[in-house]
């Protein structure tokens, strides 16, 4: 635990990418494989489910620190983080543990699950006493299921590439999909033979940056294609060895959710991977996103819903054909192959080619963008015709050019009851965005939800209240909403350093988990050119 805690502290203490990668490399080289896989698991944002309720931890920690509950709460208010509050309140014993991370996780942490409360308490307090301050903090983060660290997935991949001598692409690919943090997985992850056999595995998604300039500055339009930016679920359809795998961008296997797609997937030849957008589709046009939400998260789908909200995959890229990885080939070639492939696939219109926007000038693209909403799209994608299909979010070749207004995905963190006709219902919300691994309050919004949605959020707030301060409830950060606003500016009066004008909720993003919400860096990026 000591060396993992030290790694955590180093990552926390620097904002420099190279220093973070150096620290990761050092840890990956020194730690045993069974520790490294757990570290990779956590560093990439996977977390053990919350093992213990916060009320129990508070009570045990207050008692261990010899303070009353009210003083614990005052301390928590000053710190703003439960794991850290507990860490700071407990006396330093001078202890430190060099038991390996894997032992701490497998024998101490996971063993807490299902135990009765007395045993859990005894084990947690024993761990606090055995661990040094930084180690205790990491432990608390793990048992509260709130472990986050200031290293991106990409940094972890770069560090693993350096340690293994493999390319980043190979590492990123092998980390996709479902895997267990075992030493065997580590052996496969770093195996020098790169002809991988895992048939289910998708490719890392290539993501676009928001356009931060006038499109004219991208150069000659002939070097670019424009497509609609669809407002659905980004996914890869993998067809290999006679089997179908449908992956979301969050690396979640969605098999069983969209039977109409799986039904036609066998029409694709083996060794095919499509990249596209799952959309609710009827009469040659997408249905509103809210319709798609009716399908999200349902494991069993009734006949009526299937008929009301039929789903198609609008494909815009071909990543693999006849088992060959095409990502290094130019987009123009991939698209041409995709068009031919879809033409000869009898998919009953369920696998469709995302059309190009025919435009002779950037002004024509601009006009098309203005019609995006009417097309059921949320803007325009601009892609360089010569571009390869990269890994992660890269600048330069792919841009998304959304229609106004400005919007941000934020997490519901506080709620308070409304007044007038909304009295007694939690209708006034504060939303947070990520600042490192903490959510900072970013905007308040009261409008935009339907009465039905309000009732559902209200029920959520009552079931998931973490704390009460007068009328204000702190809620479990779980619900993600898209907020729209008209302007953004710097502010010294707001914790986030940003103030927005006319924020309102435009969508309840039931398809997103809180980790997918925006960060303060991305939101600050809006300041430069769209702010006031």
């Amino acid at each position: 635990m000591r060396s993992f805690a030290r790694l955590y502290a180093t990552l926390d203490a620097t904002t420099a990418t190279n220093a973070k990668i150096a620290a990761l490399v050092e840890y990956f080289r020194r730690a045993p494989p069974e520790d490294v896989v757990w570290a990779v698991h956590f560093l990439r944002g996977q977390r053990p489910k919350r093992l213990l309720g916060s009320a129990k931890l508070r009570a045990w920690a207050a008692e261990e620190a010899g303070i009353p509950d009210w003083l614990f709460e005052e301390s928590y208010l000053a710190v703003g983080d439960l794991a850290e509050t507990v860490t700071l309140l407990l006396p330093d014993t001078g202890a430190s543990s060099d038991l390996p991370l894997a032992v701490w996780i497998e024998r101490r942490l996971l063993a807490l699950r299902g135990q009765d409360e007395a045993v859990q308490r005894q084990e947690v307090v024993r761990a606090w006493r055995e661990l040094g301050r930084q180690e205790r903090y990491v432990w608390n983060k793990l048992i509260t299921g709130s472990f986050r660290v200031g290293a991106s997935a990409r940094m972890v991949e770069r560090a693993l590439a350096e340690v293994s001598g493999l390319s980043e692409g190979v590492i990123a690919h092998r980390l996709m999909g479902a895997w267990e943090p075992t030493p065997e997985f580590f052996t496969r992850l770093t195996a020098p033979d790169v002809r991988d056999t895992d048939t289910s595995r998708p490719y890392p998604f290539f993501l676009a940056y928001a356009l931060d300039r006038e499109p004219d500055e991208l150069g000659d339009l002939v070097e670019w294609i424009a497509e609609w930016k669809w407002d659905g679920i980004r996914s890869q359809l993998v067809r290999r060895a006679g089997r179908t795998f449908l992956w979301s961008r969050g690396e979640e296997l969605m098999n069983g959710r969209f039977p109409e797609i799986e039904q036609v997937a066998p029409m694709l030849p083996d060794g095919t991977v499509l990249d596209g957008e799952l959309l609710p589709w009827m009469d040659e046009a997408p249905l509103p996103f809210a319709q798609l939400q009716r399908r999200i998260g349902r494991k069993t789908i009734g006949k009526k819903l299937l008929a009301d909200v039929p789903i198609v995959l609008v494909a815009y890229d071909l990543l693999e054909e006849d088992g060959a990885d095409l990502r290094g080939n130019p987009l123009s070639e991939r698209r041409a192959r995709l068009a031919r492939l879809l033409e000869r696939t009898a998919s009953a219109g369920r696998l469709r080619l995302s059309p190009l926007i025919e435009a002779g000038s950037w002004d024509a693209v601009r006009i098309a963008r203005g019609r995006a909403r009417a097309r059921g799209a949320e803007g325009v994608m601009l892609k360089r015709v010569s571009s390869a299909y990269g890994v992660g979010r890269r600048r330069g070749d792919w841009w998304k050019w959304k229609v106004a207004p400005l919007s941000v995905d934020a997490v519901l963190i506080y709620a308070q009851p409304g007044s007038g006709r909304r009295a007694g219902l939690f209708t006034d919300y504060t939303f947070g965005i990520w600042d490192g691994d903490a959510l900072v309050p970013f905007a308040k919004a009261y409008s935009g939800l339907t009465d039905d949605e309000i009732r559902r959020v209200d029920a959520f707030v009552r079931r998931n209240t973490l704390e009460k301060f007068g009328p204000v409830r702190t809620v479990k950060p779980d619900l993600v909403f898209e907020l729209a606003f008209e302007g953004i500016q710097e502010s010294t009066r707001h914790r986030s350093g940003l103030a927005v004008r006319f924020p309102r909720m435009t969508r309840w993003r039931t398809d997103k988990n809180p980790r997918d919400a925006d960060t303060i860096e991305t939101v600050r990026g809006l300041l430069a050119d769209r702010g006031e």
Partner: protein
Amino acid sequence: MTLLRTTDRGLYCAAGDFFIDPWAAVDRAIVTHAHGDHVAWGCHRYLTSAEGHAVLASRLEPGAKIESVAYGVALDLAGVRVSLHPAGHILGSSQIRVEHAGEAWVVSGDYKASADPTCTAFEPVPCHTFVTESTFGLPIYRWPSPQAVFDDIHAWWRANQGAGQATLLLGYPLGKSQRLLAGLDESIGPILTHGSVERMTEVYRAAGVALPPTRHVSSVDGRADRLGALVLAPPSADATLWTRRLGVHSSGFASGWMAIRGIRRRRSIDRGFTISDHVDWPSLLDAIRATGAECVWVTHGYSSVVARWLCEQGLDASAIETRFEGERDDTVAAEV
């Protein structure tokens, strides 16, 4: 009527007709120390410790009438016995002992118990009523040993040198900067200063405090990064144009608030060093106990929290108002 009472201008002793650390101009002000939230301009007369005379003079308008008295020497102010005792906060910082009709009060001002070679160490003064600060009056605040913190600062400085970077160490220019300076190992590299730090450091040196040599940033040839220098500057200098002259640099902030990770991150500095000129929770409780006081007034900080805790321990404690209790984050900008 109590011997001291709160007024709209601060703590007042009617029997002796003087204020302690008033926040508006009064006839006679007894000043615990020279930080801005304890000194009001325009008073007719000031009384401070002999050790702190020059520091206070440097912070007041020229010609201000300042009287001073050595620690432990009692004065008679209209029949009230007044003496000043070291508080260990900064050079010349005092606790004010006030005695009248057999009743003794002590006003702590800001104080700390940890070692600081730049000022006389805090000593507990027995009294019936103790008026204490509570800037860090929560059990989450427990300071690491200053030596451990200086070891961290030195390791960071050396690493920055290795990376060709200057080391920008931010701290309050009066008190904190000189304490940092006294603990720095000058054999590692040159120590440079921001103008406001240099001015206060000169005052300290003139008062006889031994400090390693420093030079004002603009008086050296060559950029701080190439020199491998450590630069002492006030927090307000961070991320301003002024820092450009340092070249590539890593920034660190020395303050008790750095104990909290969220505060550290909000300031977007590279490193936070937990070193404070205030008492932490254990020293605060020790100090209160050591006075033997049965009645405690708590001010400047987590007043109501500390007062409630003391009441639960059987003392007669209450929180009193000061004008300087804003948002915690404001305090972070200048922990004084």
